[in-house]
């Protein structure tokens, strides 16, 4: 098998396979799984170290959470304030209600500049609206400049992570892609050689293409500024060299005050890449005459966000600052990587964000792509209770599906409906236990264990055994003991010691 990116799944939630099926492709791919766990372990270790050194980490988290909550509470006024200040500083602000509108605005802006090429900073928001293929089909070639994005663009792969999009690709795979696409036959897989190849490729783009497209980490309402953090400096090139800069940003990225950056930049860098500070923090306000892009546009993207905002329990989803700490901590993502989620937003945050951005019309398998272990909530720097939102969304999925005729005989739905009837009355539950005990005998082997079950039970027994049902339930034992004069003699209390 040649080490190419042949395993990338479709990341369009309207077309993607349900998570359990999509995950199968990855589970059978040892190289991909090794790449993912290796990369995750490296990031996790760095994050753990830098969070541990911050004695006031929990206070920082609380502050970050409060800042994001406040921003969302008054999002409308903050966005208007941003628009006013940005416009006053020479920028242009555009409002896009959905992906199609955002794509069209960006295309029109590019056409005004007669642009046929654009350089891009890594932006997952542009992937969300599938900007690159749209521009390509309208005669504009977008060149990614983030190292990971170059790897994916040249290798025709899809991002599998929101901070390190090519984390599923290893060094020798990168070498193969660069050698093939850049025509460098003798390229080694030495990181320096790979970086030098990327630099040579990029320099030519930076120096010749006068139009750039970026995302943004934060919009500052108070000043009308935009903030971008990155590690490579390639983003800085895109933000300073071109004549025209178009920034696409989700409306939820607003911060009320400039000083909020103090908290947000600390939690973001430590959570995302395990650094005290991001190597490159770019901040700009509108246009500065004679310095940097002179033609600056911000496209504010809704694309489902305002409907999330309108729902109190779901709103916390929008507090996300895209640090990916939840993704790195997730034991499910660890096994499947990102492509199985069928969205540019994978992992726990993707499992709650994607179906909501799709207005719950697609990606209904994602809220179930979690064991509810809570590791995501524990690390989230803005305290998004992801398990709580997952449960909200699961109940919405059930409400959608439960009245569908097809679901009536679905073993899961049937089983849970019956279980509810049984749990409503103890006698029913106890009768079911007795019947279950008789039924289970059919499947119980001589060793007392069940090795194979039919229907949905087979999903369990495909990799685990199940101990056969014991001859007596606990409540039967209790009743027999209470009713029997020869109840077990209680051993006298032992000497115990008070806890410290």
């Amino acid at each position, binding site marked *: 098998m040649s080490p190419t990116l042949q395993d990338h799944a479709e990341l369009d939630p309207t077309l993607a396979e349900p998570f359990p099926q999509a995950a199968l492709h990855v589970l059978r791919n040892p190289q991909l799984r090794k790449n993912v766990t290796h990369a995750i372990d490296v990031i996790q270790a760095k994050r753990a170290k830098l969070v541990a050194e911050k004695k006031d980490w929990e206070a920082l988290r609380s502050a970050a959470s409060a800042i994001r909550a406040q921003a969302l509470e008054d999002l409308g006024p903050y966005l208007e304030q941003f628009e006013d200040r940005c416009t006053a500083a020479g920028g242009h602000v555009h409002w896009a209600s959905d992906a199609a509108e955002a794509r069209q605005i960006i295309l029109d802006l590019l056409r005004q500049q007669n642009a046929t090429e654009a350089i891009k900073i890594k932006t997952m928001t542009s992937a969300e609206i599938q900007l690159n293929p749209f521009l390509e089909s309208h005669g504009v070639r977008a060149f990614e400049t983030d190292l990971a994005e170059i790897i994916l663009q040249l290798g025709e792969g899809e991002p599998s992570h929101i901070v390190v999009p090519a984390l599923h690709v290893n060094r020798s795979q990168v070498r193969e892609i660069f050698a093939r696409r850049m025509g460098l036959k003798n390229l080694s897989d030495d990181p320096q050689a790979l970086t030098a190849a990327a630099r040579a490729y990029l320099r030519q783009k930076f120096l010749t293409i006068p139009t750039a497209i970026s995302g943004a980490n934060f919009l500052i309402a108070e000043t009308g500024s935009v903030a971008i953090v990155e590690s490579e400096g390639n983003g800085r090139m895109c933000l300073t060299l071109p004549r025209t800069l178009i920034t696409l940003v989700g409306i939820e990225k607003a911060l009320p005050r400039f000083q909020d950056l103090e908290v947000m930049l600390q939690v973001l860098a430590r959570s995302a890449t395990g650094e005290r500070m991001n190597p490159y923090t770019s901040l700009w306000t509108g246009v500065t005459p004679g310095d940097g892009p002179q033609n600056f546009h911000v496209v504010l993207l809704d694309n489902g966000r305002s409907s999330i905002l309108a729902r109190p329990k779901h709103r916390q989803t929008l507090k996300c600052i895209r640090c990916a700490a939840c993704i790195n901590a997730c034991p499910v993502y660890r096994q499947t990587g990102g492509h199985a989620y069928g969205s540019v937003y994978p992992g726990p945050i993707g499992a709650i964000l994607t179906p909501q951005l799709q207005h719950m019309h697609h990606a209904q398998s994602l809220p179930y792509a979690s064991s*509810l272990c*809570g590791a995501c909530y524990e690390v989230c720097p803005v305290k998004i209770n992801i398990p709580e939102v997952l449960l909200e969304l699961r109940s919405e999925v059930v409400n959608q599906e439960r009245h569908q005729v097809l679901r009536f005989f679905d073993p*899961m739905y049937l089983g849970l409906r019956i279980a509810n009837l049984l749990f409503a009355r103890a006698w029913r539950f106890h009768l079911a236990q007795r019947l279950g005990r008789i039924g289970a005998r059919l499947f119980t082997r001589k060793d007392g264990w069940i090795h194979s079950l039919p229907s949905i*039970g087979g999903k*369990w027994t495909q990799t685990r055994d199940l101990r056969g049902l014991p001859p007596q339930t*606990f409540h039967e034992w209790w009743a027999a003991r209470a009713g029997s004069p020869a109840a077990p003699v209680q051993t006298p209390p032992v000497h115990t010691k008070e*806890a410290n």
Partner: protein
Amino acid sequence: MRASLFITCYNDTLYPETGRAVVALLERLGVELDFHPKQTCCGQMHANTGFRGEAFSQAKRFVQLYRDAEAVVIPSSSCVAMMRDQYPGLFEELGNEQLQRDFAALLPRISELSEFLIDRLGVEDVGSSFPHRVAYHASCHGVRALHLGDRPYRLLAKVRGLEIASIPNGERCCGFGGTFSVKNAEVSSAMLAAKLQDVISTGAEYCTALDNSCLMHLGGAMHRQYAGMKTIHLAEILASTEDSPAEATV
């Protein structure tokens, strides 16, 4: 002290030995235990799968049965987590004020087993003996929902003859997740394989936990793979004494 035992539906059906161990242990410590014969399920399975109305019925039933209990002890951290984390929301959404008040009054009296022993009874040494090397699996709900911290380790440290083995990546999920284990059976199995590798690497004879659900998952794979390790609920270790060693069930 008087306490009411909520055994949970799956312990009642699948792991009665855990219930018997809780009874032996707490009675040995002088607790006057009762058992409500009408108890069934806390509603966790329905709530976690998205069947909110059904979960509400079961939650309401629980509160009605235990409203007057002096203390409720539950040998399952995920069921206690269900009550602490999800009941308030369910009652706010679907219940009335009376139910909310009843639950708010009941909640402080509900304990998971290790909480009950350490926080309520104030004991760590419960006089048990279990001369084996034991790995403690810190279940997700115990760690991240109930914040049990070192309680289970403090209890295990006082067991005669017991040698605690530490599981690498100990706070990572075993992949059970209730209906997740069948809805996403393959991913769940991959998580289980990774966890099992860590658990087996301890060289312990037993893997213990405060949740039989995780142990059913881990134990099911151990049995399938002839892994040479058994699972046992922490209550059974604590109930075990030199005179009356743990029941050799599994």
